[in-house]
């Protein structure tokens, strides 16, 4: 299977993208900002179609759109998780604009629109050219390195913002940086697994890691590891079963891992709490 060029490209790009999604995703889940990630991922759709309607490279639209919105969301409220209504209203309007650009683009291009729309929404990781794949790998690795570089202060700022800012940690700037990195990640992942589906690769591995271990650094690495494993397994599955779209397979594996983590930890927690209750209620003598 690795004899084919497109498979190697898909694995290369997929691994880097999964790494970035897993690392950024951990902080996004920790800070309960998945909704912001959702908004950013949908905005990638508008960015790509606006670029297509204007006749420039879709990647420019992707990155400009998502990073711009990330900064807007970060600027609108210092705790952007509080204002989910603002996020919702802003991004639904931007989606509406995306529809408008789709109509504009299809009027101009005469019918070739279905392909671009579908590729933006659902990704086409097996369709990446080797050059695209290398670029995706470099950007993914860059985002991952940036997250690791700010991991320590960001963790402090996420868990206890009050104490962190008293100690001189730039809480606000770190939050903005995370959102910008999330924007870059979504723009990158849109090309591979699509604007509608990439949320799964951000949320599911991170959610699973957070359930499996209380140690934040371990969880951070576990989240990245689970994202990469989901991508590899998903790509292999979809290579073996041609009817299965690669994006669906990757997200299905990631969701299955999350479900497994959910079941395992819920059971363990119940058992522990039962033991505790028994220890308290049964008199020891």
């Amino acid at each position, binding site marked *: 299977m690795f004899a084919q060029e497109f498979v190697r490209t898909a694995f290369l790009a997929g691994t880097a993208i999964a790494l970035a999604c897993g690392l950024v995703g951990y902080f996004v889940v920790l800070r309960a900002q998945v*909704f912001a990630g959702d908004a950013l991922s949908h905005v990638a759709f508008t960015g790509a179609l606006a670029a297509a309607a204007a006749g420039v490279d879709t990647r420019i639209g992707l990155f400009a759109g998502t990073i711009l919105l990330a900064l807007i969301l970060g600027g609108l409220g210092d705790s952007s998780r509080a204002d989910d209504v603002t996020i*919702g209203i802003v991004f639904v309007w931007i989606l509406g604009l995306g529809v408008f650009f789709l109509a504009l683009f299809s009027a101009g291009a005469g019918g070739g629109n279905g392909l671009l729309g579908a590729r933006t929404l659902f990704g086409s990781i097996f369709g990446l050219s080797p050059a695209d794949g290398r670029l995706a790998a470099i950007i993914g690795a860059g985002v991952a390195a940036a997250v690791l570089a700010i991991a320590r202060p960001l963790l402090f700022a996420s868990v206890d913002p009050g104490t962190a800012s008293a100690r001189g940690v730039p809480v606000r700037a770190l939050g903005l940086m995370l959102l910008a990195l999330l924007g870059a990640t979504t723009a990158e992942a849109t090309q591979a697994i699509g604007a509608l589906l990439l*949320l799964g690769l951000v949320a599911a591995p991170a959610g699973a890691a957070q359930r499996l271990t209380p140690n934040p650094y371990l969880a951070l690495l576990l989240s990245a590891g689970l994202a990469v494993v989901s991508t590899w397994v998903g790509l292999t599955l979809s290579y073996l079963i041609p009817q299965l779209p690669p994006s669906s397979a990757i997200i299905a594996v990631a*969701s299955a891992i999350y479900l497994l983590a959910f079941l395992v930890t819920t059971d363990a927690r119940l058992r522990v709490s039962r033991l505790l209750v028994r220890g308290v209620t049964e008199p020891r003598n």
Partner: protein
Amino acid sequence: MPASPSLSLDLVSDFQQLTAYPFMVNALEAGAIVAVMASVVGWFMVLRRESFAGHTLSLMAFPGATGALLIGLPAAAGYFTFCGASALVIGASAGSGARGHRSEESAVTGAVQAFGLACGLLFLSLYQGVLSSYENLLFGDFLGISRGQVVTLGIVAALTLAFFAVAGRPLLFASVDEPVARASGVPARTLALAFLLVLGLAVAATAQITGVLLVFAVLVAPPATAQLITARIGWSLALTVLLSLVITWVGLGLAYFYNYPVGFYITTVAFSVYVIVRVARGVIDHPTLLRFGATMDGRS
């Protein structure tokens, strides 16, 4: 479509043009039903800060529709099944974690959303039909609304409003102050689950008109705007319904006269109304802010 429907200053002739064709009458009626139902549900959704769950439920209409297409059922059945089922999953798993665990809840919702959409893509690729039809699923198609759909919508809306007539008061209590509501015997958990289920059904109905991706415009913008204008419950509910009706009809009318997608018009009208009200609110509340050039009010 008439040869060239054109907007004029004469409102009567505009209205006659708008209602000249049965499909447009159907669309306007369906739009009105959806506007009333979605805005009441959305009002509670905004109050309970469950926008993310609402958005996720609306996206679940996509796998519902494609799945129904695949096995040859009417699309509406798929919409309601998928939206209802995922409402139960989100409600059950969000409630099972420790209370106040918002990060867990948002991870569950995100995972459910992505998984549902992945299923939708799988169904679509298994169906191997014309791929271009997915756009209508996602972004709405108000031209194809049948009489039967309007009747179904009416029934769902009646059920939804009946739910709020019965459970609205305790739900409001539980949404505003959950611990006190629990202490005085309101079954808050059951109500939360029931609300998510109603939200799922309402969203499934709405998605058939506005498209899966744009349900949110009707669901979140009118209540958010109304809650900016007034804090009184009765007024803001009434205002929500009114705003929603106006937004939907203006959006449909614009889409009829100018040939761009209806979703674009509805979202744009909704967004402009919200921005205008928010800026006005900021100016009224903090007139001094203008001197510093800031127009957003400092709520967060």
